[in-house]
């Protein structure tokens, strides 16, 4: 693909994301006009470039309630989609994603531990993300070391180890649930279902660095991911330090997953479906796949979150239900349409 086309396409999807974000901020129990949304954003983010000519209520709705929420779903959507795409590329397996490798479960154990022990009250708002990230990282290293034979880590073993450890950790989460106090149990269950309902600017501030950092690292590895499609031996022949590359990709993914899970709970399907959609539309070259997955993942999650808010007003549907309800049928549809498994990858 020509460079011009590349930037044109990314620009197109990026504009789509901006448009979706604006739409998502507009929609809600109080509908705010799109021009007003843009005006408030410009006023706030440029330090008063536009004169303030609106009342306080829409500003509070836009800036304090909806914008952080949309921003958070953008960040989490980007992170889940990119780490899914990177894991599928690394393992050359269309089923790979942070969830399958046990990372999400590890992050969930960390976060549940923080909630059940009430660490938020003692250590402040960073307790959950730090423990979630620690859980994800520890998990991926345990999985990695279980799968390792000598100096090499065969992909099949890694996926199997990931599934086994993930199931074990899920049992730990269940155990934490039954041993939690009534109040904590409610928090854990709500959090596990996945939701952006409690999103605040604080959440955005906590996760923006690890998420964007991890995403950047993953996007820097596109050349390596491309070469890895030809197999690890070829990658070594071409001079790649495959085990180092693997470790970097796994740690960056754990960082992104831990951060995403800590603010939004377990949201399935994004890491699986979005990269496959992008792959079918734009091919499997990672220099396109990763950035495009990031943008599309953000769009997808913002849309799902908006639906979660408005589907059964005034109450909310957990976003995990929406992503699964949209994602699973769509995925089945794609599978049926593309029966040829060879072309699939």
């Amino acid at each position, binding site marked *: 693909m020509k460079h011009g086309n590349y930037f044109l396409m990314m620009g197109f999807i990026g504009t789509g994301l901006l448009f979706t974000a604006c739409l998502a901020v507009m929609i809600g129990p109080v509908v705010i006009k799109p021009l007003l949304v843009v005006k408030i954003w410009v006023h706030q983010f440029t330090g008063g470039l536009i004169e303030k000519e609106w009342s306080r209520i829409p500003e509070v709705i836009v800036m304090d309630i909806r914008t952080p929420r949309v921003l958070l779903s953008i960040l989490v959507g980007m992170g889940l989609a990119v780490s899914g795409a990177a894991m599928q590329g690394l393992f050359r397996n269309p089923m790979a994603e942070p969830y399958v490798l046990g990372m999400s479960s590890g992050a969930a154990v960390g976060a549940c531990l923080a909630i059940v022990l009430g660490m938020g009250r003692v250590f402040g708002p960073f307790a959950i993300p730090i423990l979630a990230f620690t859980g994800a990282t520890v998990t991926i290293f345990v999985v990695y070391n279980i799968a390792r034979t000598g100096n090499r880590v065969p992909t099949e073993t890694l996926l199997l180890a990931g599934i086994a450890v993930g199931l074990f950790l899920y049992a730990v989460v269940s155990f934490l649930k039954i041993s939690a106090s009534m109040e904590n149990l409610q928090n854990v269950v709500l959090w596990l279902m996945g939701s952006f309902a409690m999103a605040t600017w604080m959440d955005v501030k906590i996760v923006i660095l690890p998420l964007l950092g991890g995403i950047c690292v993953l996007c820097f590895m*596109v*050349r390596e991911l491309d070469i890895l499609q*030809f197999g690890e031996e070829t990658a*070594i*022949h*071409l001079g790649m330090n495959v085990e180092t590359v693997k470790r970097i990709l796994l740690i960056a993914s754990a960082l992104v997953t831990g951060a995403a899970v800590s603010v939004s709970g377990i949201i399935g399907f994004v890491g699986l479906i979005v990269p496959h959609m992008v792959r079918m539309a734009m091919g499997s070259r990672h220099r396109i796949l990763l950035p495009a997955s990031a943008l599309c993942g953000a769009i997808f999650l913002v849309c799902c979150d908006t639906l979660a808010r408005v589907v059964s007003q005034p109450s909310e549907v957990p976003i995990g239900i929406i992503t699964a309800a949209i994602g699973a049928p769509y995925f089945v549809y794609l599978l049926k349409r593309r029966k040829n498994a060879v072309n699939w*990858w």
Partner: protein
Amino acid sequence: MLKLLNISASYQDIPILENIYLNISSKLFYGIIGPNGAGKTTLLKIMTGIKGPDAGEVLLQGKKINRFAKKEVAKIMAVVPQSSFVPPLFTVEDVVSMGRYPFQQLRFSDSDADRRCVDEAMEKTGINGLRHRRINELSGGQRQEVIIARALAQTPQILMLDEPTANLDIKHQMKILHLTSALVRNEGMAAVMVIHDLNLAARFCDRLILLHDKKILTMGTPETVLTPAHLKTAYGVETSVGENPLTRSLEVTVLDKKGAVHESVKQCVNY
């Protein structure tokens, strides 16, 4: 250029190679031959540094190969693996450009030197016309040429090929082997190839290495290696070795148990 000193190797405690000494020099085309399970591919893996030996040393330009950074090895030695899996949706140009990976510090763009090497590699392998095609649309022979072009883009001094003609039709077999021997003659490269077909090996290789029972049974020019006695020891079959009047290279014919040649069959094939 590449030296193996007293190499022994095994897989899961089963010895595959024992006490191998080998010296690969530039401007020569080497063929590794021998029966199935003799350790040909293992020998190639040890030479390329993919597999470490149990004992002995692999010296690349006088220095232990495991002391090199992987990228440095890739600048000296390129490998054409045995029918590698080809992921779809990459163009020929994408794939050949991957050969520049060991030279690339910048992540997102190719330098002028990179582009020149990629163009040259495609020129030499004659795949310029395929540049924008997707590799999964190509035939097996064309894919093999693309993989060789990727290896050439590494501007190597040693080219390693693992059964490059397996699964190819006769036209593409000839094309690949002519191309490799031209590279050896014109560019001064060393080429090492694992190959099953003894007649092709005799015709194109300058030196043959005959493996048998974990050891090098014999090595040297095709004339010294391909004798009925050596082939009897290595493969356990009776053979007749003669000169092909058209190619002026050795031709090995396998005899049946009684020692009788199926002359009529052979002649039919020749005609």
